[in-house]
């Protein structure tokens, strides 16, 4: 077992033990915080596939987070008001079933990622950052003006959605759902990195010329990475909305994109557990510093600066050293 595997296991275990302890000590707020870490980490695992493996600096991933959120909000709000979403050409009704909501969230963010990616991946560097940002902002303003679903005020859902066999209103049970989904995404992401696709994508980041010279198209590799990445972040969006029982255009804002990227960099870009370490650090700081000062983002910014300047591998990189090459 490498040092990094050891650290990753410890992180996963801590994320599981903290809410279990909180459950034993009857501290539901801590469980909710841990749930938030798991969900944000999931969003980060998604972005990290584009950012870490593909080298695609997308500043528009809030688009997928928001689409996941609104998929949940729209389906659940219709279910709670017993109205159909549309009755033409076919009747589509809302639902309170999490698996169905997740499926819709993943498919909708996947299709959106395909469209955004197909256009934005024709550019690179700063242009790519700007175009993804622009698409994100487009959806943000669209959500603000979408009066049918709350416009600027967003949508409240009164009761958390359901999952067969579980009481999702119980914080520890909802946490369990998010934790299992996070683990599944991490497992998938780890396999992806070692797969032929991961090898080619990672090479396209380091030397696109090389990838073309052996007969593969960097564009197609990146597009698939962008779609997979958007789907996972979309799933996280649906869970985030379910945690808060609330969706609003803020989920689409560029600050959301920025926050996900910031905590990935804090945790360790391109490291499997970078998003987990980063999300945990982010939530912890938000609660310690957020209690001390309204302007805690300044301290977060300082920390980010330090990491970028002195600890490029983030938390994971600092603890585990340089990544071991696979064999």
């Amino acid at each position, binding site marked *: 077992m490498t040092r990094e595997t050891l650290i990753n296991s410890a992180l996963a275990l801590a994320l599981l033990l903290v809410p279990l302890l909180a459950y034993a000590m009857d501290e539901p707020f801590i469980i909710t915080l841990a749930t938030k870490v798991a969900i944000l980490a999931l969003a980060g695992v998604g972005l990290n596939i584009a950012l870490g493996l593909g080298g695609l600096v997308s500043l528009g991933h809030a688009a997928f987070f928001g689409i996941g959120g609104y998929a949940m909000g729209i389906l659940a709000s219709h279910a709670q008001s017993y109205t159909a979403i549309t009755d033409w050409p076919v009747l589509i009704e809302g639902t309170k079933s999490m698996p169905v909501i997740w499926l819709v969230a993943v498919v909708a963010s996947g299709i959106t990622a395909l469209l955004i990616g197909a256009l934005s991946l024709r550019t690179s560097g700063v242009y790519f950052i700007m175009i993804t940002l622009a698409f994100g902002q487009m959806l943000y303003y669209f959500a603000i003006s979408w009066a049918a679903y709350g416009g600027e005020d967003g949508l409240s859902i009164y009761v958390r959605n359901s999952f067969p066999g579980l009481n999702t209103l119980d914080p520890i049970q909802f946490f369990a759902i998010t934790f299992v989904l996070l683990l599944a995404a991490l497992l998938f992401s780890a396999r992806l990195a070692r797969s032929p*696709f991961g090898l080619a994508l*990672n090479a396209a980041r380091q030397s696109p010329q*090389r990838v*073309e*010279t052996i*007969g593969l*198209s960097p564009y197609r590799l990146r597009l698939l990475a962008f779609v997979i990445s958007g789907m996972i972040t979309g799933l996280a969006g649906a869970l985030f909305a379910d945690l808060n029982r609330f969706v609003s255009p803020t989920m689409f804002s560029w600050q959301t994109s920025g926050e996900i990227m910031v905590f990935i960099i804090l945790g360790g870009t391109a490291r499997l557990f970078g998003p987990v370490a980063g999300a945990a650090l982010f939530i912890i700081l938000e609660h310690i510093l957020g209690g001390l000062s309204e302007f805690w983002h300044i301290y977060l910014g300082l920390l980010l600066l330090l990491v970028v300047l002195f600890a490029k591998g983030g938390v994971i990189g600092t603890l585990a050293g340089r990544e071991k090459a696979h064999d």
Partner: protein
Amino acid sequence: MTDLQTPILETRNICKSFDALKASQDISLDLRAGEIHALIGPNGAGKSTLIAQIAGGLKPDSGSVHLNGRDVTTLPTAKRARLGLGRTFQVSALAMEDTVLQNAVLGALGAQGRPFHLFQSALGNASLRQVAEQALERVGLQDHARTRTAELSHGQRRQLEVAVALTLQPKAFVMDEPMAGLGASGSKALTGFLDSLREQAPILMVEHDMDAVFALADRISVLVYGQIIATGSVAEIRAHPEVRRAYLGEDA
């Protein structure tokens, strides 16, 4: 080598300008089965520019490129590679963070043409790995399979460039200065290797190392200021007065 066969690789009347600079002026040359065709010329003559137009990174202003009789002028680099063009770079373009084996497996993956497997392991795939390991063995890098590419010496990187091209089993090799910076023993070893490679596929080779060129080339083309001023056998080029003046120097 007979002159009657169709060339494996051919450029016809290629022209390319960068603003006022004419980097390629009406260049027609060909590469035939079994031969090593060396392209020589002073710095800035337009050799790499020509290679880029053959490999697909750069579009000619006019003229065409043919691979096995097929016009590939408008095809992207990746498509030309799939049609059998194996290329190495003057400045090596490898995945530096990856291991030597990973770079070779990447080549094998390109040859296999199915990169969209998300679940199997790339290095655990026996057929990919076999192709990669064979290629590394042929260039003598088998003992460095697990070395990070960034840690290779300059010469080893050149070997890896060739190994990755080998994994593609190309129908024609295009190599931009494979000997550059190798040192005497390194370039001697690579000369021997390229000599044996021509039976597998012909090589169009840009090279400054004249000992290597004279030892290997069946034909030499001389490029000066974007123009081919002569094409011929080693003896012909050595005797060519214009070449002696323009490139080899009067006393060569």
